[in-house]
């Protein structure tokens, strides 16, 4: 015991020396061992579990694993989701690099979940990973596979209700999630006001959500990292896959660019409900219509054993038209086209045995163009933003018990809050809200140290910097929103507002006997961009606005503690996590604030604080004929704004006291698989009126009766609870010839959404019928029981 303590102290002293001097040593007799985990077509297998004799560790997302081992013989077992595990006996007597090939499971959709001890061993707090093979089996509305929707089945991650776009992680807002596609931020990750996300299941390899204990390399958002990784193409032969669903179809083409060295994959999808509707009911549809399409592409090029290039491309557009051109009243037409375009180039390099680095160049665009015609009035509005970023990350692994990471990110933001023109009869107004510019930068250093064989520390410091600069012109407004008549002009590059903050991150892992562990984490996060939205949903017209003189950056501090255990040879895993989070500089808009073409957007904002705490329980059965998970969250999220609710705290709209999700897969036979999802959540918090009164009174002399408008009187904010939300969905997957050796493979997915036809409230309101002199509460619900069918194929 004394010896162990001395060793620990020695390591700790060494760590401190490392921190102070950044000088690293390596035991002279250890050899550097590099393992590449690949599948049968030479594609890296992400996050494989590597067991060396009795010690388990995880490979990274690129299938690489580094360690140092003394001379000797070792038994190495590699396992990963969707693959059979492989065992190799290896003799280490010098620095070694070798590959482990994992054979994929045969069926088109994988049958079992295999993530051995992942959460127990990994020193990352509050993380969930899902492979597409898991997601594809779950029932989804109208059969549309959606990775973003699926993560809301995990504890601590909530959606906003039926058909809601937002993801709410541990009491944070929907703009507080760093949604990444291959490391590139996606500003508007939704199609169709949130019914579907922009991520096409065919193009995605896996998705990971970090709810707390964010590693130092991530920043810029307060609440979570939602990292979507697209898959690489087949390096051996040309493959085509796709699916035909009720409202959309998908097609993917992949294959080698240079055999074994370079591949591409292009996945595209388009909805066609507009085209179907036009065929079925051309008269009633008229000019109305909606569709979206998106294209994901990825190419990789292995320059040599140590250098690989990756190119990620995404573009998508939504096109929505509403036209009411019958002759009853003025003609109305609304058309909006919006979407993201993302381009990223990444160079991954294994510099030497200890050093590797990743360099990324990124361009990111979001644009909205809309047009409204109402009678003689026309209105055109456009907005958007563009980012140019560079990111460089370095990893240094001097020994098998310590790893260092360092890097920097720099982003040049251009915000286009809005340009509009309107025509009102003979008048034309041209309007341009001044563009805004900002530079955002961050540097970080972190270390991952095994202080003892049982205690691991991941400690990092991120230092972020944000600078809003000219050229721009600001109109100065008074407290009541009136312009003071003064304007401020900032020259190109002139600083308007500057912020810099340290963001410490600490994760501690202590391994307990019998495949169990406890973890502790502390995270500070800073967010310099806010999403300006007044509505409960997210709209494409919502604006991202930079921190400025008036808008302070959001800050969050979170502590979390958890217990993790796997048992029965990793077949089962349980975890319990508790968290407490405080947030400052939270932003709300004054009720009824005007966001479009408002030069004084900042004047419409009010600022407050937030608090969230909760307990998350998770039970997962990973393998076997029946597998799946049960998640439960008990939580509270609240906000405090001096100008709202008389300064008293009030529940956040998406405060959900109880949240339950049950996900189960069951293999019925060789050909049939069943999946079921059940969700339950406390209803959203709403502000409901307490009273009503008449205003804008007049008198109709003809009818001899008063003229008035009924106005609602409100008291406390979010004091009313919607009814609880619950629903069960089922899916059945049929594979005609599961063991066929033929190239062409296909399956059918039959799904039922909302099996027991629960009328979950989409929204509720009180209808005041002045003619009938009746006041009646109403509930609107969207989706009854909905069948879906999708045919997937691959050849």
């Amino acid at each position, binding site marked *: 015991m004394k010896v162990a303590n001395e060793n620990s102290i020695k390591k700790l002293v060494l760590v401190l020396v490392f921190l102070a001097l950044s000088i690293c040593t390596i035991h002279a007799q250890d050899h550097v061992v590099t393992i590449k985990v690949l599948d049968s077509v030479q594609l890296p297998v992400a996050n494989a579990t590597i067991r060396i004799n009795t010690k388990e560790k995880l490979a990274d997302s690129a299938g690489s694993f580094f360690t140092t081992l003394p001379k000797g013989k070792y038994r190495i077992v590699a396992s990963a989701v969707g693959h059979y595990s492989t065992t190799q006996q290896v003799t280490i007597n010098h620095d070694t690099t070798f590959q482990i090939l994992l054979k994929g499971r045969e069926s088109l959709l994988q049958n079992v979940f295999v993530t051995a001890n992942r959460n127990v061993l990994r020193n990352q707090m509050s993380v969930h990973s899902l492979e597409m093979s898991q997601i594809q089996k779950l029932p989804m509305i109208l059969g549309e596979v959606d990775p973003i929707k699926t993560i809301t089945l995990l504890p601590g991650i909530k959606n906003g209700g039926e058909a809601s776009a937002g993801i709410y992680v541990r009491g944070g807002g929907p703009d507080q999630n760093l949604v990444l596609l291959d490391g590139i931020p996606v500003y508007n990750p939704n199609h169709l006001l949130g*019914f579907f996300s922009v991520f096409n299941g065919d193009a995605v390899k896996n998705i990971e959500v970090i709810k707390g204990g964010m590693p130092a390399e991530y920043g810029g958002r307060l609440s979570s990292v939602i990292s979507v990784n697209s898959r690489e193409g087949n390096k051996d032969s040309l493959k085509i896959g796709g699916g035909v669903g009720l409202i959309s179809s998908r097609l993917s083409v992949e294959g080698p660019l240079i055999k074994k060295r370079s591949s591409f994959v292009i996945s595209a999808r388009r909805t066609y409900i507009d085209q179907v509707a036009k065929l079925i009911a051309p008269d009633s549809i008229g000019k109305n219509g909606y569709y979206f399409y998106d294209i994901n592409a990825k190419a990789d090029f292995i320059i040599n054993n140590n250098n690989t290039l990756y190119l990620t491309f995404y573009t998508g557009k939504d096109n929505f038209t509403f036209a009411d051109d019958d002759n*009853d009243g003025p003609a109305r037409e609304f058309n909006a086209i919006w979407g993201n375009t993302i381009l990223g180039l990444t160079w991954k390099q294994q510099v030497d045995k200890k050093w590797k680095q990743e360099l990324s160049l990124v361009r990111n665009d979001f644009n909205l163009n809309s047009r409204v015609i*109402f*009678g*003689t*009035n026309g209105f055109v509005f456009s907005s958007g933003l563009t980012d140019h970023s560079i990111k460089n990350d370095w990893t240094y692994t001097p020994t098998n018990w310590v790893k260092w990471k360092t890097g920097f990110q720099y982003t040049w933001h251009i915000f286009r809050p809005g340009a*509009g023109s309107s025509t*009102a*009869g003979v*008048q034309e*107004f041209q*309007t341009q809200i001044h563009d805004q510019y900002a530079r955002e930068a961050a540097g970080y250093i972190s270390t991952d140290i095994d202080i003892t064989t049982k205690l691991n520390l991941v400690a990092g410091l991120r230092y972020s910097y944000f600078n809003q600069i000219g050229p721009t012109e600001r*109109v100065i407004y008074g407290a*009541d*929103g009136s*312009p003071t*008549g003064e304007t401020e002009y900032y020259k190109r590059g002139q600083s308007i507002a500057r912020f810099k903050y340290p963001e410490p991150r600490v994760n501690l892992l202590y391994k307990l006997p019998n495949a169990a562990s406890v973890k502790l984490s502390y995270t500070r996060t800073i967010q310099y961009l806010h999403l300006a939205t*007044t*509505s*409960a*949903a997210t709209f494409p017209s919502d604006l991202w606005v930079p921190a400025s003189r008036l808008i302070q950056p959001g800050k969050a501090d979170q502590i979390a503690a958890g217990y993790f255990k796997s048992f029965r040879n990793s077949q089962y895993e349980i975890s319990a996590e508790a968290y407490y989070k405080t947030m400052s500089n939270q932003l709300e808009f004054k*009720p*009824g604030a005007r966001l479009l*073409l408002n030069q004084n957007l900042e004047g419409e904002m009010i600022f407050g604080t937030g608090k969230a705490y909760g307990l998350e329980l998770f039970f997962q059965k990973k393998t076997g004929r029946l597998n799946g998970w049960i998640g439960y969250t008990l939580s509270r999220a609240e906000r405090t704004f001096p100008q709202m609710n008389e300064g008293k705290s009030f529940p956040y709209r998406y405060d959900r006291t109880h949240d339950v999700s049950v996900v189960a897969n069951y293999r019925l036979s060789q050909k049939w698989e069943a999946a079921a999802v059940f969700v339950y959540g406390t209803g959203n918090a709403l502000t409901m*009126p*307490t*009273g*009503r*009164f008449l*205003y*804008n*009174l*007049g*008198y*109709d*002399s*003809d009818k001899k009766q008063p*003229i*008035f*408008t*009924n*106005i609602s*009187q*409100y*008291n*406390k904010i979010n*004091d009313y609870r919607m009814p609880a939300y619950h629903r069960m969905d089922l899916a059945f997957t049929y594979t005609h010839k599961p063991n066929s050796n033929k190239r062409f493979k296909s399956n059918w997915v039959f799904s039922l959404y909302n099996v027991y036809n629960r*009328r979950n*409230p989409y929204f*509720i309101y*009180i209808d005041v019928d*002045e003619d009938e*002199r009746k*006041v009646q509460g*109403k*509930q*609107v*619900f*969207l989706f*009854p029981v909905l069948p879906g069918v999708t045919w997937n194929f691959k050849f």
Partner: protein
Amino acid sequence: MFMSCERNFDIKLEDNVPQLIVEAYINNELPLYNYVILGRSQGYYDNGFENIPVTGATVTITEGTLEANNVYNWNTATKKRLIEGKLPQFGNAMLPGVYFDSMISRNQLNRALIGTPGKHYLLEIDAEGKHYSAITQLLPVVPVDSLTSGFHYLDDDGDSTLEKARITVHYKDPDTIGNTILHYWRHGYDKDNFGWGGLGSNRFITGSDELVNGEYIHLTHSYGFLLTDSVSYFMAGVERKVYNFWDSFNKARSNGGPFSTPVKLLNTIEGENVIGCFSGFSLSVRSIVIK
């Protein structure tokens, strides 16, 4: 776009704290339209759809100026008491909760309360043992240059087809930024309607000039007027807090649906448990016969 259904649903609400509702106006053109209506709010599910009048209040309006040191100087000689009275327009029936200058009841409109552009006005109310007050300003008048009609269309309401036209108002926005304007009109055929709430049905097209400051404006309203209609047009320049109030009124009355957040009507009245606005309207009045 997708299917949606609706059903009745029992929504249990918190108990309501009744508020005094104040609707008060001062303008420079229409003495009959300078009045104060006092009402009371009620529980959401309470019976009744009429204004619940607050009667017997002491209501006064005093003219004054804002001095250079930002202090109001109220001219007590101008203080007018408004009383609940009988109007010829309402068959000389008592109008509870509606307070006018007594000169109006006596049909002496030329001696009744009228606003002057540039002046400030103090509203004081003593009702049910409590005191309330509000201040508004009449801004310099933004004159309407002219009105034209055009943009004809056929309005088919299912029973008949009527030819209608739209009004365009022409005026020069002042060079100072922050001018806010409300637009009202009255048809020839319902000219006997009464009150700001009794004017044309599309009456709250609010506008602020941040985006069009100093421009010559030709604003065409979507609302369709019957041909030969004789329309009185009132363009009301208002200070920002009055504009903000009526803007919140527009939002509050059209509030609802899944994507909206509740809009609380703003308040410009000082006092306990009160909601309302003292609206100073600097009117420019024109009329037009629709062609």
